Structures are given as C-alpha cells and as structure tokens.
C-alpha cells in the first residue's frame, strides 16, 4: 500500500522533472560542485570560480549554437574548425593592415558564411549533417592551416580598445578578491547572448519553428513552417556564434595556432546532451547546455585542483555524459 503510493509519488516527481530538460544537468552540476567543494582544497575560491566562468563563456557561445542546431535536428561537427578559421581571418586581416573592428566583422561574416555553407550542403543534398559537417570539419581545418601557413598567427601591436571591450579583464572586480580573481568581460557577453538566445528559442516564432523542425519535420512542413530556411538559419547562427567565441578568445590571447578548437565540436555536443538536448532533435533549451558546459569546465578545473592528472578529465567527462543521458532517458520515458 505505502510502497505503491511511494512509487506513484516517484512517478509523479519524474513527470514533473521531465518538464524541465535542464533538470538533470542542474542536479549533476550541484553534485559535482558539492564533491569538489569537499575534496578539492582551492575549489570554492574566486580564482577557480572565475576561471570556470571565463573559459566556460567562450566555449559556451559555441555550445548555444550547437544546442539550437541539435534541437532543430541537425549536427555541426565543424564548429572547432570554424573557430580556428575565424581567429586566423581576424589576425591575418589585422596584420594585413585592416583596422580591428572591420577585420572582426569580416571574421564574423566568414564564420556565418561557413555555417551557411554547412546548411546549404545539408538542405540541398539531403545528406545527414553528421557526415556533411564531418567533411567540412576537415575542409575548414584545412583552410585554417592553409591561410595560416600551418603556423601561429599573432597580433603584436598594442592592445586595441576592441580587445578590452570583447574580453578584457575585469580588473576592478578582480582585485577585490585575494588571491586576485580572473573574471573577464566574456562572462557578461555570454550571459547576454544566452538570455537573448533563450528568448529567441522559447518566445519567438523562429524558436517555435526550431522545435517543430526537429520534432517532426514532416508535420512542420505540412503546417507551413519553412523547414529548410529554419535549418539554414540555425546553421548560420551556429557559425556566427562560433565566430563570436573565437574573436572573444583571440581578444584575450592575441594569438591563434592551427589546432585551435580541435575537439570542441564533441565537447559542445556533450554539453548539449548533458543539458537535456535530445540527439534526435525537438527537445532542449539554452539553459541546460549552458549548465552542461559549465559542468565540464568545472570538472576540468576541479580535477586539476584535486591534483588528479588532467588526462583523467575525459574519462570522468565521458562517465558524466553517459549518466546524464541514462537519467534523461529515464525521465522522459512515457510509462
């Protein structure tokens, strides 16, 4: 009797949790944070937290794009390569004499165009985006290596205001902490973009169409949703957000190497899936994947602080990924 009512309550709780695709990410995040606060000595310090946020913000911009695209039912494995191309384009055009701002706009335009090309290949040929963007991942990486001559590209002039504006150190805030923290402006832009994109996804017509396109493209088309255009826009948006992440990172580091961004495409997919985005499309949010990427960043920083070899990071990240998917599947089960 009481066992039955307990089961019934559990089921009801599960249904309620299933309403929020980000629930699992949030729970995992809190558990991992809790573990680290007990086991890693310097975890709850301003340095660690500001590092997680500053680094997470750059990757987070990519994750938002990838997540929206996944909700629309498509993948983009080329974001890591677009990330490299954007920084090279920006660096090389500035070195060629273009002012920082127009050079940056050019880099963003290139990123958006590379995203659009991904979209056009997928929409026009009908091949799975997994394969199409696997191809462009290699091709765009080749472009990054090609234009960079296989070498680093650096910006060696004195720091322009644009760099500070994009990703300057929040010095006045940082010195309030001992030891000095590492909060950067990228955090602010990231929060702004996340809020905007969350609004776009949940409260606009385009967002509604993204869910419909990923949830059941045939039905969406039958209801007059321009499915192909939605996909093209989502691919372009992903390229643009990746470009934005790239210029933000370059504004901080002022150099880029040919391997920049490699492997990030899978980190972005992992963060999205941990954040409750379905691989099959139609389900997800912006908030979940944002928590997902912060969780992965926290994991990396936390393990370092625990003195665990950074090589272990991928193993733990993989385990969390699988656990999250299993939990999400359990929650969205319909019985």
């Amino acid at each position, binding site marked *: 009797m009481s066992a039955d009512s307990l089961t019934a309550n559990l089921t009801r709780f599960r249904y309620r949790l299933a309403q929020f695709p980000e629930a699992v990410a949030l729970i995992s995040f809190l558990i991992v944070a809790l573990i680290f606060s007990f086991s890693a000595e310097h975890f709850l310090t301003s340095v660690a937290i500001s590092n997680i946020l500053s680094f997470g913000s750059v990757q987070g911009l990519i994750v938002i794009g990838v997540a929206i695209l996944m909700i629309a039912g498509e993948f983009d494995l080329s974001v890591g390569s677009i990330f490299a191309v954007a920084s090279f384009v920006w660096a090389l055009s500035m070195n060629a004499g273009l002012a920082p701002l127009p050079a940056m706009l050019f880099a963003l335009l290139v990123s958006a165009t590379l995203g659009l090309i991904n979209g056009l290949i997928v929409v026009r040929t009908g091949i799975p985006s997994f394969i199409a963007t696997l191809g462009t991942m290699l091709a765009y990486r080749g472009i990054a290596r090609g234009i960079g001559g296989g070498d680093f590209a650096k910006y060696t002039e004195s720091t322009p205001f644009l760099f500070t504006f994009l990703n300057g150190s929040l010095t006045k805030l940082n010195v309030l902490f001992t030891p000095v923290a590492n909060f950067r402006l990228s955090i602010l832009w990231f929060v702004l973009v996340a809020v905007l994109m969350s*609004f776009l996804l949940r*409260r*606009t*017509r385009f*967002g*509604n*169409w993204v*869910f*419909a396109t990923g*949830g*059941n493209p*045939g*039905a*969406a*088309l*039958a*209801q*007059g*949703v*321009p499915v192909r255009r939605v996909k093209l826009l989502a691919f372009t948006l992903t390229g643009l957000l990746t470009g934005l992440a790239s210029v933000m990172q370059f504004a901080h580091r002022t150099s880029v190497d040919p391997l920049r961004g490699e492997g990030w495409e899978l980190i972005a997919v992992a963060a999205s899936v941990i954040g409750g985005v379905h691989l099959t499309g*139609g*389900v997800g949010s912006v908030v979940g994947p944002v928590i997902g990427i912060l969780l992965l960043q926290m994991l990396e920083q936390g393990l370092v602080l625990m003195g665990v070899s950074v090589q272990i990071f991928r193993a733990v990240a993989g385990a969390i990924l699988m656990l999250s998917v299993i939990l999400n599947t359990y929650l969205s089960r*319909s019985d």
Partner: protein
Amino acid sequence: MSMSGNGGDTPVVYMEDIVKRFGTITALDGVDFTVNQREVVGLLGDNGAGKSTLIKVLTGVHTPTKGQIYFEGQKVDIPSPQVARALGIETCYQDLALIPLMSVTRNFFLGREVTRGFGPVTWLDMPEMDQQAREALKDIGIHLRSPREKVGKLSGGERQSIAIGRARYFGAKLLILDEPTSALSVGETHKVLTYTLNAKERGLSVIFISHNVGHVYQVADRFTIIRRGHLVGNYTRDEVTENDIADLITGEREK
C-alpha cells in the same frame, strides 16, 4: 467521371487529368478528382494505388507532371504547402499532423503564431494563444486538462480531434483526413467520425482517406476509388455496398 455531387455549386476542388511521374515510375496516370461543397469524399485505394500522391499534389508537396487544379472554379498552381493552406486546404496526416514533443497550444498555432511586439522585434503571445486554443477546442467539444500539455501525452483520438479543431478554427474550406482512424480504439474512432460529420455540418468539405472501408462508409457521401494510378470510378453511397467497394479497391470486380 461525374462532376455533379450534391447541389449544382462549383466544386471546392476539381483536379483534372493529373499525371505524376517519379523518374520512370508513373504514380498517377491521368486521374480526375472532384470534391463538392459540404461533401465528404472517401478516397480509397490499396497501398501504392496513388492516394497519397494525389493528396500530395493537391497540398503542394508534389508538383504534378501534367494536369490542372481548380479551386472553387479558379485555376490554381499549388507549388508549396503554404499556398495550399492559404487557399483553405488543411491536411491532417496521421503522423504528420502534430508534433508530439510540443504543447497543444504550440501545435495548434504552429506556422500561424500570434505575436506581439515593436517593429521587427516580435514575440509569442502565449497567454492569448493558450486561451484561444482552449476555447476553439471546447467549441467542438474537446476538453483539455491544460493547453500547455504535450501532445504526445494525449490519446490518438484526442490528437486527431485537435488537428480537426485547428483546421476549423483557421477557416479551412477543405479538410483532408489521412488515415484518421487507423490505430484507434472503437470509442476513439467513433469520436473522430463524429468530429468529421461535425466539420461537414459547419460547412467544410472533407476528403477522408482510409483503408478501413467500414469507417469511410459511415461518413462519406461519395467514394472515389483509384487503383495503380488510375481512376476506377466515383460512386455515391446508395450505388454501392461496403463489399462492392472492397471489391473495386482490389480489382476483383470492374464497374
């Protein structure tokens, strides 16, 4: 080919000599098809007979290789589903009607969202849409727990009725029901058939596509039967029995 259904009005739809080829395969080979005002037409045929190709031509999913379409007497081109919809042709596909992972309201208004905003910045007016969806569905006798509920949690009959209610709400003139009763229980089927007749009462014309002759027979005024891309014939309900129709579909008996 008989063009006179009930009344002498202009047919809602008249498709003339429709041919559709996919490469070397001829899916439709010169089919004529008519739906009159306030008429329920049962479109019948075996798997691969060309029923769904004909409907896809009518709804703008496929462009015909040859042939004309007249909507309310006007010759029209239907190059996309949006155009079909703008004309007042609504399709309720079995699997393509609704998106299970989205709420009733979001499904109800999909592609025709109510928005508010300033200039180019617009956002969804969810409270307004929730209320309108709830009332529109209540109007044809569908009571929902919440319009925010995911469609996937509803029963098959409830889903069909939402699609029908949506079509009616948006002023459809022609409603296409594609296999609306397959995979439904007896009670649910009964509901869907009732909604179909309700829709007709309120002035809609309906194309009812089904494998189940029994279900079509309960609601259709006229039956159009096609086989292997050809029109077999048009029959009113008093001309044929259920068994006759079954025989005509399989080709065991010619007219």
